[in-house]
């Protein structure tokens, strides 16, 4: 039944594809918190849970591979924020993964904007 190929890199982390580790009950709770959802069948619930696991793996791996922490062997928040900004499929995350900027930089930008406004 197991049809693992060498090309199957993304799911390599989840050695056993048939099992899931996230709690289905919690995923169902999140799904049901969406107001227009009335009911969800068993397969849909299973698939969404599995997809969420694949998503966590994919987000972590692509943020790490494109991030700045490869040399220091670390994954930081800013790597994730960059992934959200730079990767199309992660664009829906930009609201919850905003890029951090220093307060000083922010004030400078604010000042610049005010100057520009005054010029106009």
């Amino acid at each position, binding site marked *: 039944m197991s049809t693992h190929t060498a090309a199957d890199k993304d799911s390599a982390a989840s050695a056993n594809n048939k099992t899931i580790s996230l709690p289905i009950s919690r*995923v169902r709770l999140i799904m049901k918190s969406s107001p227009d959802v009335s009911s969800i069948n068993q397969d849909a619930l299973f698939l969404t849970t*599995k*997809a969420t696991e694949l998503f966590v793996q994919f987000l*972590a791996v692509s943020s790490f591979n494109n991030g700045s922490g490869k040399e220091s062997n670390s994954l*930081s928040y800013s790597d994730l924020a960059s992934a959200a900004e730079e990767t199309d499929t992660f664009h829906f995350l930009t609201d919850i993964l905003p890029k951090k900027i220093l307060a000083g930089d922010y004030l400078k930008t604010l000042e610049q904007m005010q100057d520009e406004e005054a010029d106009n």
Partner: protein
Amino acid sequence: MAERPEDLNLPNAVITRIIKEALPDGVNVSKEARRAISQAASVFVLYATSCANNFAMKAKRKTLNAADVLAAMEEMEFERFLEPLREALEGVFVIQDRYCGEWILHG
């Protein structure tokens, strides 16, 4: 439906384990990064649910099914998940018994 806001979070221990398994050995994942991924996962569930629900509504069905979720993945441009998902669905429905098993059987 959720009584407390933390009910909409996924368990940190499980998320951390999935991240660790996906990354090369010895990568240090900051606490902030772990929290961010966990929140992203919750948002992913909501986004997928909303997409899948649109497909169900178009077909005038009230219950979300597997085809709706797969169509949602395509719509969200996560086609790369389709094959592993189909494979998982075909497989035996086994769930690691760390959490109580009873909810597995009830839709």
